């Protein structure tokens, strides 16, 4: 049976919601971000320090190769749960919102460490977060979608809010993944090693609160997602053989190549749906894998789509790849530093193992003034 055109009469590769005329998704409401939170460990680890810990002499200049100067490392008593909890509280504070006002709470990290390097499968970590926050009314569950976890949570909440099923929800993540680097350091031998990407990761928590926007107020303009599953096995992670925590094996080069190539039509689709050109994006926040990959990707996107976004956000130099939290950690940093003005339009691009491609376009609007020195 042929797949028919969607309800709006058009063919889309992505699952898409929103658009210039609001036609996609038959939605009576618009959702908007109302609070962004983060939780960042104190301890910093430079790439030189990490590479000095490798078991074998590698001669890899990690900082030059990836642009990762340093990353944060969870300290005593910190894990996925505590990082997520800290970010959730920060987001609630920035949104001037009580936990009891949350209708949905989604935990979206890859890592589920609770109580050190103990990976919790049951109960879902969201149950613990709900209790600790006092989000009494919230429906809670965990999702997992590699580094696209938080963006997937945003897509889900956006759908629920636009339909009027809920008024307000939070997606939160706590990534305690620096142990990937510790384990990789025991095995990595060359620059071509399939655990090289594990040396670029860092720990962080992030949270985003979405709510129903008042009538006429700006919010999420388009949200889209797809899974290009022919590439699903390019990056795999599971408990390590060599020690506590996990290990991750990836074909980083192939991931980067197909990620860039296959993302172009997705960007075109979402921009078209939003009625925008790429150069009308004020801030482009891609997934933070390496500075080199971001530079290459933006160059190709700009050449093919015509025009470049006004600003490209890079935080991988100071935080490393913090997995599912990267977009919201970057957003939080820029909000805290007062870099946005209300009219700025942001495009979040997730390219993650799966291969997941997720895109969200929104106006910063009311987020300005809710963070850092402005708040």
């Amino acid at each position, binding site marked *: 049976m042929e797949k028919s055109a969607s309800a709006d009469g058009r063919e*889309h590769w*992505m699952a898409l919601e929103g658009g210039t005329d609001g036609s996609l998704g038959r939605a009576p409401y618009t959702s908007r971000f109302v609070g962004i939170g983060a939780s960042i460990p104190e301890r910093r680890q430079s790439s030189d320090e990490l590479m000095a810990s490798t078991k074998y002499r590698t001669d890899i200049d990690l900082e030059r190769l990836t642009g990762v100067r340093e990353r944060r490392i969870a300290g005593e008593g910190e894990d996925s749960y505590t990082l997520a909890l800290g970010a959730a509280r920060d987001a609630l504070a920035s949104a001037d919102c009580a936990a009891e006002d949350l209708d949905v709470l989604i935990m979206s990290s890859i890592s589920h460490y609770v109580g050190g390097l103990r990976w919790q499968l049951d109960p*879902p970590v969201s149950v613990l977060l709900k209790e600790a926050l006092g989000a009494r009314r919230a429906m809670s569950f965990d999702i997992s979608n590699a580094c696209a976890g938080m963006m997937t949570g945003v897509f889900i909440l956006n759908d629920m809010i636009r339909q009027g099923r809920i008024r307000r929800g939070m997606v939160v993540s706590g990534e305690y993944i620096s142990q990937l680097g510790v384990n990789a350091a025991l095995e990595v031998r060359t620059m071509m090693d399939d655990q090289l990407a594990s040396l670029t990761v860092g720990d962080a928590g992030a949270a985003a609160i979405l709510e129903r926007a008042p009538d006429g107020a700006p919010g999420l303009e388009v949200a889209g997602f797809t899974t290009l599953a022919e590439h699903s096995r390019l990056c795999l992670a599971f408990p390590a053989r060599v020690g506590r925590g996990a290990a991750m094996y990836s074909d980083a080069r192939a991931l980067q190549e197909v990620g860039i190539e296959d993302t172009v039509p997705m960007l075109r689709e979402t921009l078209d749906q939003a009625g925008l050109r790429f150069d009308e994006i004020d801030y482009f926040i891609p997934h933070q894998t390496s500075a080199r990959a971001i530079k290459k990707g933006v160059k190709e996107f700009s050449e093919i789509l015509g025009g470049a976004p006004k600003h490209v956000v890079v935080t991988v130099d100071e935080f490393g790849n913090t997995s599912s939290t990267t977009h919201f950690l970057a957003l939080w940093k820029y909000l805290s530093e007062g870099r946005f003005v209300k009219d700025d339009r942001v495009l979040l691009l997730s390219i993650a193992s799966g291969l997941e491609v997720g895109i969200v376009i929104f106006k910063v609007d009311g987020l300005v003034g809710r963070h850092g020195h402005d708040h």
Partner: protein
Amino acid sequence: MGTIIEASATATATAHQRSLTPGALQLADAAARSCLERAERTAEELDLLINAGVFHDRILSEPALASLIQEDIGANLDRPAVAGRGTFSFDVSNGACGLLTGISLVDGMLASGTVELGMVVASDMDPQPGVSEGFSFPGVGGAVLLSADDSRAGFTAFQFATFPELAGQFYSYVDWHDDAERGLAGGGQNTITVEITESYATRALECAESTARELAGAQALDLGEVDLLVATASVPGFGEALATRLGIPGERVASLPDGLDGAHTAAPAVALESVQLAEASTALFVSAGAGITVAVALYRA
């Protein structure tokens, strides 16, 4: 317009034991394929694929198992330059309530018109036979295929509740175990452990009953109207015991067969194998699991 179940299917480790070693992924793949066949649908028609299993092969944490299932069943793998619509896949983890949680998410995206056909798949299999501790769930996968139907009510209400004071009743985790027996310096392995207390079944029943009654109250549902109860909590006898508490006759319970009555995340799909959902005018789905978390859904023909 309502979200209806077009088909459901299961796959058991016993039935697939001739194929290598059936793990959670193979069970999910088989259940998904069987479900599509029963509905006379193709994988290309899938817009949304959610996996809700907890115990994956190799305890895989990345990517989402759903993306591997998508690749295995061949759902829209072509590069996006090819015209058409793709498939969006991700995992939900909500213990034994995962399948119903996934169904509620598909229901939302069907209602918004974002997707037209969605599938929720769940499977569990001991990832470390002979090594894991306390793992007692049978190897089984289940799948439920959902679409919107203008002429039928389908799922009309969902109710979720958590009882965090009972979080210790059902606990599973992966942790490093030193390999002291073999005397290897620094040796050991990451091992999966499942701990379920003796009182879990009773506590789960109490939580499920209160949540089901809450939904009944909110929906003005007379529980006597329920002509099909699909109730699971990863422990044998849960459906029958809940029916007694809710005053629903035992013959209206979708029972799980021996050997699969302790099924974990796929249990609702397993229970559906024993009944004709289309013949039920009012079906009540109840799942309870670690948390303790309860999910209840009302399904009207």
